[in-house]
């Protein structure tokens, strides 16, 4: 290559584009109507309303009726998020779920079809309770790289299909739900622009929360799994410790990257795993209790659906207002975790549920 060529290349280079950010344009939550109260659970397993409330902060969770699965939940939330964003087309759909309708294929293409989005890119993402933040990071990346101008991200879960209804450690915690968000290309300095995101994982602790059977590991072993191995197993005490430490660490990192001090945070939204984990994380960070958003009482732990559902509920209830500085954190099986910041935009959140008081 000679000098002239190099000059030509320089001349041909397009003017530097303004940094392109992903901006939150719509948010939604959808919860199936069937409610399971603590009293319902106490009738079938050795537990009580008081025991469940003091240890988890949960008073009810929801489950799908037989025959419904993740596709329907994801589609309901997706439709609402598109409506919230006043948008009828996106370039990609990312569905974060631990409970896809089948091992193969992914559920996202069916959701895209059900939403009438045509032949758009669509795939599932598996990061359990941190799934929404991983999907968010993926959407931000796609938009920043120019692969897409608008992305629909959905967290949808039917944990009722993988939780042993007789396991008092998990049956009290998990619920079915979906939440979704639309991201569009925009400017980094406008409200709703997704700020720094930190994600992490620790695969040496994959045993802390897992469904042992149903995947290649079990199939390859060639042994007949016990029925119990198709259910979620969780070592609650260990999970608590790692969840607290990792969410605190990731939160501090994104606060630093955002140039925010803890005192700058108006609202803190954590994955709704257990009210006591959220309280412990907020306390360790120094975020006052009244700034911590919570809806776990009504929905339990809804895994990947948890954060968008929480944000939709909080915004609908007026607890999250335009220009509020928001810190997000999540943690789940994997282990996986993440945190992110954004300034809340002026959008109309849509949340459909039948919570009982």
């Amino acid at each position: 290559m000679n000098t002239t060529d190099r000059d030509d290349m320089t001349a041909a280079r397009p003017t530097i584009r303004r940094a392109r950010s992903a901006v939150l344009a719509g948010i939604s939550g959808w919860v199936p109507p069937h409610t399971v109260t603590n009293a319902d659970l106490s009738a079938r397993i050795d537990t009580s309303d008081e025991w469940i409330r003091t240890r988890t902060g949960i008073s009810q969770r929801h489950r799908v009726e037989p025959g419904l699965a993740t596709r329907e939940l994801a589609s309901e939330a997706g439709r609402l998020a598109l409506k919230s964003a006043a948008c009828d087309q996106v370039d990609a759909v990312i569905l974060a779920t631990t409970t896809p309708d089948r091992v193969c294929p992914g559920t996202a293409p069916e959701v895209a079809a059900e939403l009438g989005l045509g032949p758009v890119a669509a795939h599932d993402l598996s990061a359990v309770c941190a799934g929404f933040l991983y999907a968010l990071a993926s959407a931000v990346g796609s938009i920043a790289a120019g692969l897409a101008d608008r992305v629909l991200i959905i967290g949808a879960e039917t944990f009722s299909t993988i939780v042993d209804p007789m396991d008092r450690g998990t049956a009290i915690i998990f619920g079915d739900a979906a939440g979704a968000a639309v991201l569009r290309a925009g400017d980094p300095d406008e409200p709703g622009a997704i700020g720094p995101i930190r994600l992490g994982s620790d695969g040496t602790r994959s045993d802390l929360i897992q469904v042992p059977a149903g995947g290649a590991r079990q199939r390859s072993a060639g042994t007949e799994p016990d029925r119990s191995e198709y259910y979620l197993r969780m070592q609650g005490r260990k999970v608590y410790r790692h969840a607290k430490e990792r969410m605190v660490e990731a939160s501090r990192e994104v606060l630093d990257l955002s140039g925010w001090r803890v005192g700058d945070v108006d609202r803190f939204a954590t994955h709704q795993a257990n009210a006591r984990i959220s309280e412990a994380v907020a306390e360790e960070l120094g975020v006052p209790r009244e700034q911590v958003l919570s809806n776990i009482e009504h929905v339990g732990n809804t895994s990947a659906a948890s954060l968008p559902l929480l944000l939709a509920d909080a915004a609908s209830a007026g607890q999250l207002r335009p220009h509020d500085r928001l810190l997000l954190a999540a943690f789940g099986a994997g282990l996986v975790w993440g945190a992110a910041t954004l300034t809340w935009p002026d959008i109309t959140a849509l949340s459909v549920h039948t919570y009982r008081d």
Partner: protein
Amino acid sequence: MFEKVKSILTAGFQVPADQIAPDSTLDDLGLDSLATVEFALALEKDLGVEISDDEVADLERLDKITALIERRLQIT
């Protein structure tokens, strides 16, 4: 050391001092499984000792937990 452990329980876990005896178990003092994790974390942070929530939960009794902490601190 027992007094230090006791003060962690009274200050951080709202356990009345007169309820705390060497042979008290964490269950006696009203600490459930998640509070046990917080207790282990507090011991590590305040006393500078490595002790896991499993160890704290398995030992159960305060005198046994205190003995382990003392052994660990002497070794290091």
